[in-house]
């Protein structure tokens, strides 16, 4: 199966997010209360090391598995959408204590009410799709 590699990456990522406690509602609460360095350490060290990878991708020293230049997708520009979207996501992140990846990890852990959060997230995505042309960008 050609996608087996993404199954394995997903499994490893799910284990890392669990063992790092980044899927814990409490860790997110603690982060927003500035009462622990834990989440800042995880995100900060992930960003710092990723920045080194990104540098080698950009200068072409590291290529992808088939030898092609690695292109980093440019994020959509637009101050209003990015800030407003960010704030809306932040409200949900703190309330559920989970961002998109941990939603799936926690369902795997057997936290079944997280399925309601997932359905909500799909509904929110759907609402965005309906309104996307009418929203300020």
């Amino acid at each position, binding site marked *: 199966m050609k*996608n087996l590699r*993404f*199954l394995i*990456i*997903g499994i490893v*990522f*799910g*284990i*890392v997010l669990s*063992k*790092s406690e*980044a899927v*814990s509602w*409490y860790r*997110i*609460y603690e982060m927003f*209360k500035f009462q*622990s360095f834990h989440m800042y350490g*995880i*995100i900060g*060290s*992930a960003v*710092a090391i*990723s920045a080194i*990878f*990104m540098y080698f991708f950009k200068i072409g020293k*590291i290529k992808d*598995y088939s030898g*092609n230049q*690695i292109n*980093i997708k440019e994020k959509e*520009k637009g101050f209003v959408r*990015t800030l407003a979207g*960010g*704030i*809306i*996501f*932040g*409200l*949900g*992140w*703190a*309330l*559920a204590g*989970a961002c*998109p990846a941990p*939603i*799936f990890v*926690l369902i*795997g*852990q057997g936290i*079944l009410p997280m399925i*309601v*959060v997932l*359905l*909500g*997230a799909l509904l929110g995505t*759907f609402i*965005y799709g*309906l309104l996307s042309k009418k929203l300020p960008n």
Partner: protein
Amino acid sequence: MDFILQPWPWFVSGPLIAIILFLFFHFGKNFGVSANLETICTMAGAGKVSDYFKKDWKERDWAIVFLVGLTIGGYIAVNYLSVTTEIDLNPITVNELADLGFADAGKTYVPNEIFSIENMQTLKGFAILLIAGILIGFGTRYADGCTSGHAITGLSSFQLPSLIAVIGFFIGGLVMTWILFPLIFG
């Protein structure tokens, strides 16, 4: 082996997340999770209602496999790779949460006050879960990314929109935690 069974410190977890990002790019994809919510909507037939979802999801079938992997990873971590789900929280956090009505903070990964089956069956409990999800789904699409797409991929490649998005994530998170929580749970 004992090290694996204990919670992993940040300086182990952060670099491992960077390696996950590396593998994504190595296999020719960008690292991000929230776009997959869109893919699920497309698979479910949202394209019939809105042109926004008129995309070929088969091009992103790998993303669905990745989500299945995440779920399996959570199952494996909790059932085979953990001796405890206790979290070593700051005692100040535990006391503050007790005042908000969260008993036993840190004994499990997520609080029963939000994530128990009984709570899910109450109107307020169900509404909290659903609304949190809607905010996550809507916000990540409007901002064009979540924690992995903006905070990790975007910041590490020095993209300005990602810095703005992460500032937004924090404004929203701080408002929820400091202002709205006492109103919702107090």
